[in-house]
């Protein structure tokens, strides 16, 4: 029953997220809106109930199982994207190299700035 109560909370936030999406005509998925709502509510409350912790842990531990049908689809794409694989490959490899470089450079730049940090004290 503990896990089901937590699942009820998650489902309720999902439905609330879907309602928000339709109400405001947002292009953001209901799951993400529900997650943002849940995070906001938890930050306001400052605590997580046991049932919510159990249910969320249970679902997160089987995430790989839930995304598997989507991954299997890769092997059944057939010739749907023929002639675009070079673009896809280069975009993924070069794009990821550039974005990792950008992240590391920005984080290092803003962390090693003792002059700036002093203003916070």
């Amino acid at each position, binding site marked *: 029953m503990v896990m089901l109560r937590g*699942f009820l909370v*998650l489902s309720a*936030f*999902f439905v609330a997220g879907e309602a928000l999406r339709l109400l405001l005509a947002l*292009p*953001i*998925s209901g*799951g*993400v809106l*529900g*997650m943002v*709502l*849940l*995070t906001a509510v*938890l930050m306001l409350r400052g605590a*997580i109930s046991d049932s919510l*912790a159990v249910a*969320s*842990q249970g*679902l*997160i531990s*089987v*995430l*790989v*199982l*839930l*995304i*598997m*049908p*989507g*991954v*299997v*689809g*890769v*092997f*059944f*794409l057939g010739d*749907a*994207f023929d002639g*675009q694989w070079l*673009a*896809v490959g*280069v*975009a*993924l*490899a*070069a*794009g*990821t*190299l550039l*974005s990792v470089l950008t*992240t*590391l*450079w*920005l*984080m*290092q730049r*803003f*962390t090693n700035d003792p002059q*700036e940090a002093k203003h916070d004290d």
Partner: protein
Amino acid sequence: MTDVSGWWQPLQESLAASPMLAIALTLGAYACGSWVFHRLGSPIWAPPVLVSAMLLSAVLAVLTIEFRDYRAGAQWLTVLLGPATVALGVPLYQQMHHIRALWRPILCTLPLAATLAAVYAVVIAGLLGATPEVLASLAPKSVTAPIAIGITEQLGGSVPLMMGGLLITGVVATLCVDVLARWLAITDERILGFALGLNGHAIGTARAFELSATAGAFASLGMGLTGVFTAIFLPLAFRWIGL
């Protein structure tokens, strides 16, 4: 009971009509894939989801089950991605206190780096002549899978193509962080973890937990914030650009 074909035919037909066969095959492949992954010594280049998916594809091919039929049955599992995405709010909340330790670099880096992670890939693919559907499938490449599926559906991309791109991105990002951190002489585990989670989603986060618990915590935070930021920013940007 005497005639073998007498009960096999109805069994196959009744299984094909219910989602149980697809669910059983998915669970079985997941168990086998996890086992093989551990036997291989948990390699970064072959995450368990890839091993399991390859096994499952082979089984579907051998049993001559149409992917369309399999996907219809597996919907009973994938529908849980909705509440599972909501559940990601719990670890995100639990990692929030790390923001206090490094709030300035995180707030300065995250919006720009998460935006560029999508922009680099979309611009490069666009210049090489990719179609809008491919661009929509590549854009959420640094976002954790459950959130990325929602984004791709909103953008009108192909979920299987996006999943393939996601796996490659996770592996490439993990290798790039290793190489570039050495080149830039970065040893701060908080920075390495954050970069792994931001660019390499769950695959990068798994690698960060191998480095240290601190790196893992910052990777979880980077993954969660990137997911939320990208899920809100990308669909609005695509709508605005008119793609």
